[in-house]
């Protein structure tokens, strides 16, 4: 356990020592989204009855911040360590693949949740949030953060250069989060794109998370939970499997 705790602590320290860049900056970005989209669309879009567009936007932005920052943390930590060579300090000790997985993903989830909490606290000041089902909020936030932390770990193991990691981030993670219904309800989409959205696991994370605030969603939260939980289990076994096999880490 000491090995796991130390690596977890190191991963937290790594982002905490540069918190301006890893926490404050993404909080500011999310605030800008809220101010601009809220200002432009407030009077034109009504997704749920009795829910103002700005209020609708907040949970989506919070979740998007959680997801993107969880991904950014584990992926950038791993690729930096790989490229500078100091990953050797983690590979030489008797750390098991479970310990390495747990430490990287938990720290990534923690950073995602810290940014998400920051975004929420600041945006809550402009809107008046409701909490219809707080447990669902917690469950989807945790699962979403863990999933993206895991995806970041996989991307970090796979990528050999920074631009490969950037490609992963720009061509997979960004479109998947933006097209998951952060800014809209998928019911407003044409039928074809509604169907496409239903194949995007990120959609269920955000939809379920939003249900916790408004008690309204595009899909039944239990169903979203089942899909997200299975998605997590698959990714987690893939990541642990990669660590166990030494794929691209132990040549």
């Amino acid at each position, binding site marked *: 356990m000491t090995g796991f705790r130390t690596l977890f602590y190191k991963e937290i*320290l790594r982002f905490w020592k540069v918190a301006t860049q890893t926490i404050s900056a993404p909080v500011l970005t999310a605030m800008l989204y809220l101010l601009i989209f809220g200002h432009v669309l407030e009077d034109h879009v009504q997704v749920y009855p009795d829910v103002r567009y700005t209020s609708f936007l907040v949970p989506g932005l919070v979740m998007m911040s959680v997801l993107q920052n969880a991904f950014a943390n584990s992926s950038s930590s791993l690729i930096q360590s790989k490229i500078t060579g100091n990953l050797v300090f983690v590979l030489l000790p008797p750390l098991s693949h479970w310990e390495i997985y747990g430490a990287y993903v938990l720290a990534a989830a923690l950073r995602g949740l810290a940014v998400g909490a920051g975004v929420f606290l600041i945006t809550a000041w402009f809107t008046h949030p409701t909490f219809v089902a707080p447990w669902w909020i917690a469950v989807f936030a945790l699962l979403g953060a863990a999933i993206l932390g895991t995806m970041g770990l996989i991307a970090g193991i796979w990528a050999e250069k920074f631009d490969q990691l950037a490609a992963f981030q720009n061509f997979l993670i960004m479109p998947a989060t933006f097209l998951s219904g952060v800014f809209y309800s998928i019911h407003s989409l044409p039928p074809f794109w509604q169907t496409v959205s239903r194949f995007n696991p990120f959609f269920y994370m955000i939809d379920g998370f939003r249900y916790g605030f408004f008690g309204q969603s595009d899909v039944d939260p239990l169903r979203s939970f089942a899909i997200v939980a299975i998605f997590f289990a698959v990714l987690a076994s893939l990541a642990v499997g990669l660590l166990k096999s030494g794929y691209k880490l132990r040549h």
Partner: protein
Amino acid sequence: MAALEIVNVEKRYKSLQALGGVSLRIEQGEFFGLLGPNGAGKTTLISIVAGLSRADAGSVAIYGYDVVRDYRQARKHLGVVPQELVFDPFFTVRETLRMQSGYFGLTRNDAWIDEVMENLGLADKADANMRALSGGMKRRVLVAQALVHRPPVIVLDEPTAGVDVELRQTLWKFIARLNREGHTIVLTTHYLEEAQALCNRVAMLKAGKVVALDTTAALIKRISGSQLVINLARGTLPDSLKPLVSHPQELVSGNRYTLRVNEYTEVEPILAALREAGAVIDDMQLQQADLEDVFLQIMEGGK
């Protein structure tokens, strides 16, 4: 039980056969040298021992623990100083060493961390950020990181490459002390005089194979007892003496020759042969063979 047992290890990188069936048994308490030119497979072998790389065939055990099957126990018994100068720029020296202890499951390790820092001349840099250290200081931290868990087997992969004399002396003093206290040391180095001074046994690797394995003393004895180095002011080496030349390039390059001499009585006939050929000696030395000669002879042989 052997400190390190390497059995028939093979490793291939695409078309390159990095290791072609290496076997070595290193006993507890040895100071063992692993020598060979660049690309001979030394670092590949160390990576496999450390679990940074996986062998294609064969097995490695540290204190009887297989490095793949019982990797946790094996790694607890092993400390490795990597060849590359790597560091984590986020942390200070003390943070780095505390974290490395933690990875090995150790808390409250500060007394030993302080002792290691003291012995490696790092004490006054304890709270300096890794980024702020000179190359030599970073190298010391790498050594300290390998020692935080008091591993019974310590592997140093060219620890003195590009390092100043002071650090070399500090380092060898400390490593020699650890060896006296029972730690097994495995060293790769390009400085053969270092290996000769420190190692009780030496393996030489060439193109992924062990080409020599013996005690340092026996290896040196294996080649001619001594060497006669002569500089000629005039004339050339007569044909009868050419087979005695130990470095073939000397036959092409000029007037300095190193001749193998097994007994002192062989010196007189050599001088006589030179005199008969009309050569005039400018300078002459009789040298004991050293590990470098053995190394060169073994590496040049079979070319």
